[in-house]
Structures are given as C-alpha cells and as structure tokens.
C-alpha cells in the first residue's frame, strides 16, 4: 500500500493502489500489514504502527489547536458585535463609567489568549450592560 505523511511524520493518506494521476515519487510504499494500524508513523527510516501514547499525544495537540481556533473565533465574534459601541460619535455619548466598562470588556476579549488556561479553560467576559 501507499502512504503519504504529514509534517509530524504521521500518515495522513493511505491508499491500496495509486491512481494514474499520482506521482509514485510522492508516496512511500508500506507493507499491507500496517493497514490495520490505528495510526502509521515514520520514525526515522522506520515506518511502523504508532503507539497509543503517540496517538494520544498527537490528538491532544490537535485538540488544543482546534480549541484555540474556536476560542479565537468566538472572541472575534464578540469584538465585532461590540464594534459599534466604540464608534466615536456613539462612544462620546456614554458616561465615563460606561466608557470604562466598554473599554475594559474589549480589552479582556483581546487578552483572552493570555488567560492561563487558554484555550481549554477560558472565561469569556460577559457583555457589558449599559
């Protein structure tokens, strides 16, 4: 069978045969016995089944990255929703206390990735009540 690896040397595509459009040089030929592996890893010159620990470590990395993307997306949504509050003409009509609340809220959103538990344990600041 034929395998293509990602930058972390983990198999990302496993094919039983190559379509005519594929360049064989882009693929690594691997024993069919590895077809049943949970994950295939390239360990130097050796290609083998990844251990459960290696699989779990990779998944943890992926989950953290996915969670970070999701939290940043939610943060960006909240910032967008509050953009109109800081338009000069509207912002000027708020009291000093309200302006401070808005400013603090948006600053907390921007600093979200700095929270110690980011991205898995994050406290999203509540929208200001004006």
């Amino acid at each position, binding site marked *: *069978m034929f395998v293509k690896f*990602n930058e*972390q040397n*983990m*198999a*990302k*595509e*496993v*094919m*039983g*045969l*190559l*379509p005519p459009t*594929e360049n064989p040089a882009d693929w690594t030929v691997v024993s069919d016995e590895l*077809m*049943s592996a*949970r*994950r295939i890893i390239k360990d130097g010159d050796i290609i083998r089944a990844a251990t459960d620990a290696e*699989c779990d470590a*990779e*998944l943890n990395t*992926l*989950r953290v990255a*996915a969670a970070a*993307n*999701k939290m940043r*997306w939610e943060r960006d949504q909240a910032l967008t929703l509050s953009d109109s509050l800081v338009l000069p003409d509207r912002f000027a009509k708020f009291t000093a206390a309200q302006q401070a609340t808005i400013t603090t809220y948006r600053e907390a959103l921007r600093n979200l990735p700095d929270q110690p538990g980011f991205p898995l344990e994050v406290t999203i600041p509540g929208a200001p009540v004006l």
Partner: protein
Amino acid sequence: MSKLVVDTIQRPGGATLSFPVTDGTAGQFLKSDASGNLTFSDTYVFPSPTLPILAQEGKGIVGCVSSFTDRNNTYSSPQWSSSGPWTTYTNYNAHDDNNLIQFINMALGDGLPQGTSEWFIGDDDRGSGPRAVQFATGDRLGYKRDRLQWSNSTSNGGHTFRIMPIRNTSAAAISVPFYARCSDYYSSGYEGTCMFVLTPNTSTYSTVTTVSSTRLSYGQTSTDQSGTNLTGSISIPANTTVLVCLANTNSYQTTYRFKDTSHWYYLNSSYTFSNTNIVCDMRMLSSLYTSNFNLPNTGTCNGTGILAPLWTKTATNFGDR
C-alpha cells in the same frame, strides 16, 4: 392403453394422441409436449412475488444508497454526543469493531434502529439526510457540495455515508479496483475518511451467514482537506455481490461553510468496470434502498452474522441467486 370412451369420432386422420396408462394424482391435469404425448402434470405454481428492481442490471447503470449528517461531533451514532446514550464511533475505522454496525445503520438512514425518541443520525434535525439512492451519469457517483453547519465547529465535522453493491457475474474471482475522493479532517481522533468492502461468506444471497470487512484505503488528515483520494482493489469471488462502502468527514472552509466531498470516480470500462462481468447489483441496490433489515444497534460485525440480513433480505424481497 387404458380404456378410452368417446361419443363420436369427429375427425378421422386427425392427430394421434398418446394418453398416460395410469391415472394421475388428485388435482393433476393432462399436459401436452406438443408431439401428441400427454402426461399428468401439476399445475404451475407462480413463485412468490418479488418487488420490482430500481433499474435493469448489466446496462452500465451504477447506483448507491447514501445518507448524511450536517452536524458536528463525530463521537457516536445517532446522537453524536460524547455524553449521549450511545457508544463510540470512529469514521476512519468504519470497517471494524463496533463502528461498522453504526456505519451501516447510518448509511441506511437510522443510526439507532431500535430507538424511540432519539435523533436518527445527527444530534439534531438541522441537516440529517434520510436513506436515498443516487445513480451515476458518467464515471462519477456521489457529490461534492458546500454546506452550512450551524455549530461552525472546525473539528468533528459531519459525514456522508455511501454503499455501492458490486456483483461479479462470472464463475471465477475477479480483482476490481475502486477509486474514490472524499473530504477529510482528523482532529479529535474520531473523524477521518475510509473506503472498505463487505464480502459475504457464500455467493447465494439466501445462504449468507457471515460477512467480512476489508479496509481498502483511509485518511487521517489533520488539516482540512476538501478532496483526498481513496483507492484500493479487492478480489470479488465468483457469482458474488460485495458492498463497497465510503465514509467521509466534512472539511472546514470558512465560517459556517464546509466542504462535503463524497464520490467514486473511474467507474468506466478502463478501471472499475473494465471487466464486463462486473456490474452494479440492482437487486441488492433495490433492497438496500427499500428493505427493512431491522439490524441491531450494536455488535461486532466483521466476520460475524450480524450483517447477513443485507443479503438474505435481498433474497426474500427481490429474488435469490
């Protein structure tokens, strides 16, 4: 000859008829062989009626059944929740363990056949497709579509499930190649993409008792990928129908927008159907589309009899062979 009594000889020189020398059993009729020989024979009994098939077989028509879910969370069927009432499902490993029965149930439109109030496939009703049939108009069968996912989760994307029945009509095994293209994403460990084949232990529908599963190709792409090639070949036994199965994961494109690629290609005379003895099994396709298989919710299928009803029900509903 036994005694024959007639009132009048009407046509001297007419055809000579040879009657049986002994009486038949109750209810039998005289039957001619068109050469003047008459014998007692049973009345013709029509076979049990079978349902009409979707399309004529052996005419180059290729079809599959499919369903889909446009919902995030690839954990389990049908609730798609890690905390739901169901069990784990892994898409890149759909051919094996407890995943296979869930794949089949979802592909047939109900991930929990014995369920009551649970969702059928996805964890809501915002985009679960019922069992459907689709035919190829060229070398490809399936689709490549954009779709909206309300939960906008980049991981644990939705899926499309497909089953294409392929029959070897010859008396010898034939090796057949399959080419598919699927969207893919691998983030939580439950996603990925997979093409596999289900092979029965005997060639006759009605006598199938166990089914084995073979994975041909799979993907575990940790970056969203709208099209991954899945290829492989399998030797189909003589006069046997196998089920070629496809499971993909939707890939994230941009906010709320995902790519759902799920199709076979090269379904032509140079590749998959290069041997004219290889056809799409229309009895099996019709059965997969219409039959009530009443499969269990769970169980290890590979090498067991759990999936045998896919073949035996076809024999009952559409005729055995």
